[in-house]
């Protein structure tokens, strides 16, 4: 058995890395990048073809400054290369996969070697320590376990730190609160909307005063400063943001420190650029733009210049917490039409596919709102005349069938409302498919 690493009450999980002078970070990035590019170019035929097609001579890539010559990777590449066209190690070296939601079309499968998992858990352990965490903590993880990266990411980080991990996975609020109280959980990890719901439930059931929560690490969906205050008030803890995406590894790509003023990007593993989403031009640090990540030392699934579609601002200023790694703002929007509803990625095109498969017209409207702390998700569908029965039972069956098809495509439940034919407004040009009433950005 491995000896438990004792890092009691430290301010940083890996102080030498987290507080490294920026010049040194840049040196590390430079070395890692040049090697990583070579390796990926030589071992991933899909990537080689992409670089060759862009007319880039691989010998010209001599330092990180040359990265802007390289083509971007996007979700379309991941789809084209699905399932393993971007795998950069032999399959026998892979120990795990994770995947994003969505059963067709936009699904992403990411691969991990043992080393990849180790580095990832370092990142999430850093995030826990940044909230004042230590091996004395009891970390309750209510992100979903399984293909979703949330559960595994925080679980492994808490293990790495030597904290007691309570692997709850999502749902079953009564049981969550029971364990939270009985295990005296001090750190809560889940989506901000679930945190808010747990807070409301704790107050309703009169258990709030018996909880010992100190900090919460909340991510996987957009949330505002107002929501942070609301959660902090309800659960009597300090709420920290965490950022990540399956394509790059999972939660822990960036995390908030005690300052709660932007998320430190783990720059020893990930190189960050901001670009103009329209032209692809790299923007100076501090400009608002789309985040583009390069995995510097991931082995199995090392994406180079992956466009996240998240619009953010980077802040290179020194942080009073002592960490030198650059900070990113909360995402301020998306450069594509993806919605994040109840923590799940939803593309309007997926809804269109389901409706067409169901023999319905692609005239639909998605209405997303936030009631209290939970997202509501309504899909208005025009009722085709030939499909409409004259009994309530027939219409209910039809609705249920659409709800179930949407659920198997998206992984979340929508409220489907059949509306009269031609009642959804046709606008000139682009149809208004999405009405997002949430004020998230």
């Amino acid at each position, binding site marked *: 058995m491995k000896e438990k690493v004792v890092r009691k009450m430290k301010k940083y999980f890996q102080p030498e890395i987290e507080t490294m002078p920026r010049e040194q970070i840049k040196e590390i990035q430079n070395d890692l990048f040049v090697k990583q590019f070579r390796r990926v170019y030589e071992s991933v035929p899909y990537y080689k073809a992409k670089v060759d097609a862009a007319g880039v001579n691989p010998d010209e890539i001599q330092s990180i400054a040359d990265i802007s010559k390289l083509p971007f990777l996007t979700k379309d590449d991941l789809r084209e290369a699905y399932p393993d066209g971007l795998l950069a190690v032999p399959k026998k070296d892979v120990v795990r996969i994770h995947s994003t939601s969505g059963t067709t079309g936009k699904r992403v499968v990411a691969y991990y070697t043992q080393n990849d998992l180790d580095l990832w858990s370092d990142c999430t352990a850093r995030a826990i320590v940044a909230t004042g965490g230590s091996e004395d903590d009891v970390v309750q993880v209510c992100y979903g376990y399984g293909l979703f990266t949330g559960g595994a990411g925080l679980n492994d980080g808490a293990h790495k730190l030597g904290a007691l991990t309570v692997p709850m996975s999502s749902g079953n609020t009564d049981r969550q609160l029971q364990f939270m109280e009985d295990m005296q959980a001090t750190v809560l990890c889940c989506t901000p909307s679930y945190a808010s719901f747990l807070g409301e439930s704790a107050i309703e059931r009169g258990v709030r005063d018996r909880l010992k929560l100190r900090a919460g690490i909340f991510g996987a969906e957009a949330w505002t400063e107002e929501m942070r205050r609301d959660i902090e008030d309800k659960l009597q803890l300090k709420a920290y943001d965490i950022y990540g995406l399956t394509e790059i590894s999972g939660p822990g790509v960036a995390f908030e420190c005690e300052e709660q003023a932007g998320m430190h990007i783990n720059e020893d593993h990930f190189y960050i650029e901001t670009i103009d989403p329209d032209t692809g031009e790299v923007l100076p640090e501090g400009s608002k733009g789309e985040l583009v990540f390069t995995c510097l030392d991931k082995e199995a699934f090392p994406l180079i210049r992956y466009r996240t579609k998240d619009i953010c601002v980077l802040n290179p200023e020194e942080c009073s917490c002592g960490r030198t790694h650059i900070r990113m703002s909360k995402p301020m929007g998306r450069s594509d039409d993806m919605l994040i509803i109840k923590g799940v990625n939803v593309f309007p095109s997926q809804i269109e596919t389901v409706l067409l498969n169901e023999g319905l017209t692609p005239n639909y409207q998605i209405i997303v709102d936030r009631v209290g702390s939970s997202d509501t998700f309504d899909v208005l569908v025009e*009722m085709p*005349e*030939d499909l*409409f029965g*004259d*009994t*309530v*039972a027939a*219409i209910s069956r039809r609705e249920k069938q659409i709800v179930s098809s949407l659920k198997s495509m998206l992984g979340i439940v929508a409220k489907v*409302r*059949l*509306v*009269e*034919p*031609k*009642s959804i407004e046709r606008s000139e040009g682009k149809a208004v498919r999405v009405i997002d009433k949430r004020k998230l950005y």
Partner: protein
Amino acid sequence: MIQKQISAYLENKPGQLLDYIQVLGENNIDLQALCIADTEDYGLLRMIVDDPDKAVDLLKKAGHSCAITEVLSVVIPDRPGAMRKALAALNEAQISFDYCYAFFSKEEGKANIVFRVPDNDEALKALEDAGALE
């Protein structure tokens, strides 16, 4: 007899029924029976009119969605116990219906019942055999 019934899906918002009925009134269509099944989000309108094909044509031209369903419409005596007899006949023949509604006949002493059943002929036969009809 097999009767053509017009049905329409009405979202729950003000003025919906009026919009439909207006078209009928303006075109001199005689409305003989009307009922609405109400749910949280919508109502299902069902109507018997004197000229269903013309009515549907006019409604569609006016931009309203509607459909024709063939339902069973029977005439029973307008007196206590007559409805019981009809229902007992269907029950005896193990015929279930999705919905039914009743209205006075234009003929004195008679009533109409509309049944939505899986098989109109079978249901009609069961009612006739039991002597439930006028």
